[in-house]
């Protein structure tokens, strides 16, 4: 299993570790609910160094990027971050990712850990002219500092005016005297920052942030809370809610497909899918009463199976089970009552709009 530069620190902090996409990662430290609430109310620090960083360079880098992603790379000024998908020729989602324009001819693509190699190979196959792709995952450490107090914590460690960095923007600068990319992004729905820097400094940066955050009761936070936080906001998780058999429209991600930007992989198919994408679409529901429904559980109306859950867990804020999945579009109406078969019994659930909180 691969280890991030902070592996020892997590173990010393008493984290429960797990294999995630081939990486040994912390699931929880003080407990998922405690960490979840810390991020919603104060702040938490995640080691997400397992995320893949791919560097796309060369005079034809932007042209290559346009061909590979569904969103429009021309919307990327320096200091802007772009959320996008990569699709195959059938319109199936290869990955969801964020893109940073570091320089005119240099783009950083941040991809899901479990897809890093697949994405690298796919991109390499579709490069234009002199463009090059390099896997920088081992070079970068990545931390996510998330929560309403995250700005106050980070302000103590940098001269940058963080208030000038808007949502989905970034700056390059120093934090704790080390160079890094400071990106106002995250996977929690809270005010927060993602930091990319040379992995050699990972321990120092981690300790400095934890120290600066002490007065705000900062918590080290693991992948368990990361999952419940993203689910409460309805963010899709690759491998659960999206995959190569699902197209963007089906997943309610049509907003990152720019059919008018010019040619890109999957465009022809996606054009056709835009108006009739599918039989089943992504939906969300809240479990009534006690119980947690999870990925793979079947969704019923009366005796009929109408779909299946792709993610499901417990919402520490709602104190209820929440889930997302794919069901026949006719049934996706807020307030609709459905049933979910969990082991031997049926849980009542209500269809809701996202986000949950």
């Amino acid at each position, binding site marked *: 299993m691969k280890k991030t530069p902070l592996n020892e620190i997590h173990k010393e902090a008493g984290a*429960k570790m797990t294999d995630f996409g081939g990486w040994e990662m912390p*699931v*929880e430290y003080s*407990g*998922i*609910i*405690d960490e979840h609430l810390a991020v919603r109310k104060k702040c938490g620090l995640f080691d997400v160094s397992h995320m893949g960083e791919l560097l796309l360079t060369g005079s034809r880098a932007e042209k290559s990027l346009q061909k590979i992603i569904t969103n429009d790379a021309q919307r990327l000024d320096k200091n802007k971050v772009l959320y996008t998908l990569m699709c195959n020729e059938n319109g199936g989602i290869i990955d969801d990712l964020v893109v940073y324009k570091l320089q005119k001819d240099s783009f950083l693509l941040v991809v899901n850990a479990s897809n890093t190699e697949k994405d690298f190979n796919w991109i390499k196959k579709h490069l234009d002219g002199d463009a090059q792709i390099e896997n920088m995952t081992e070079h970068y450490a990545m931390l996510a500092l998330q929560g309403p107090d995250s700005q106050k914590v980070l302000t103590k460690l940098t001269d940058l005016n963080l208030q000038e960095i808007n949502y989905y923007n970034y700056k390059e600068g120093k934090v704790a005297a080390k160079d890094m990319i400071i990106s106002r992004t995250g996977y929690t729905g809270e005010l927060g920052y993602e930091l990319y820097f040379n992995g050699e400094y990972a321990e120092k940066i981690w300790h400095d942030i934890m120290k600066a955050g002490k007065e705000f009761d900062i918590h080290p936070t693991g992948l*368990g809370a990361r999952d*419940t936080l993203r689910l409460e906001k309805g963010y899709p998780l690759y491998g659960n809610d999206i995959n190569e058999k699902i197209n963007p429209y089906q997943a309610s991600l049509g907003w990152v497909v720019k059919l008018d930007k010019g040619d890109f992989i999957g465009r022809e198919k996606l054009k056709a899918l835009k108006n009739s994408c599918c039989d089943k679409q992504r939906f969300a529901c809240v479990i009534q009463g*006690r*119980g*947690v429904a*999870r990925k793979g559980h079947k969704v019923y109306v009366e005796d009929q199976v109408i779909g299946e859950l792709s993610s499901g*867990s*417990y919402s*520490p804020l709602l*104190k209820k089970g929440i889930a997302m999945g794919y069901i026949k579009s006719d049934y996706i109406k807020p307030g609709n009552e459905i049933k979910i078969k969990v*082991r031997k019994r049926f849980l009542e659930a209500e269809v809701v709009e996202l986000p949950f909180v």
Partner: protein
Amino acid sequence: MSVKEGLLYSEDHEWVKKEDDLLVIGVSDFAQEELGDIVFVELPEIGEEFEIGDSFGVLESVKAVSDTFIPVSAKVVEINEVLFDQPELINDDPYGEGWLIKVEAEDLSELEELLSAEEYAEFLEEA
């Protein structure tokens, strides 16, 4: 992680304590720690009877779900209803306020098959 002295344990991580004529049953500290934050609990009805090894309840945590298995054949005489509203008691105090059920055992000799605290601690180390 703690193994409380004076209790009997099953390899399924339940503990049993004699209390007058009854047996109190709960899950071990190891079990609650493995599960993480417990958010919902299903317990049997009073009067229900179980054979040794039957599932008598369900503990649902944020990450996972787990059956609880009865370590002796028995009839349920009391359940810890407080857990329906405060399932976290199992995490906070697995050997005390987090108990699950009280039962009348059919055959107390079944208890001989269970592990002592010391044996259970060894079992955990080997696992």
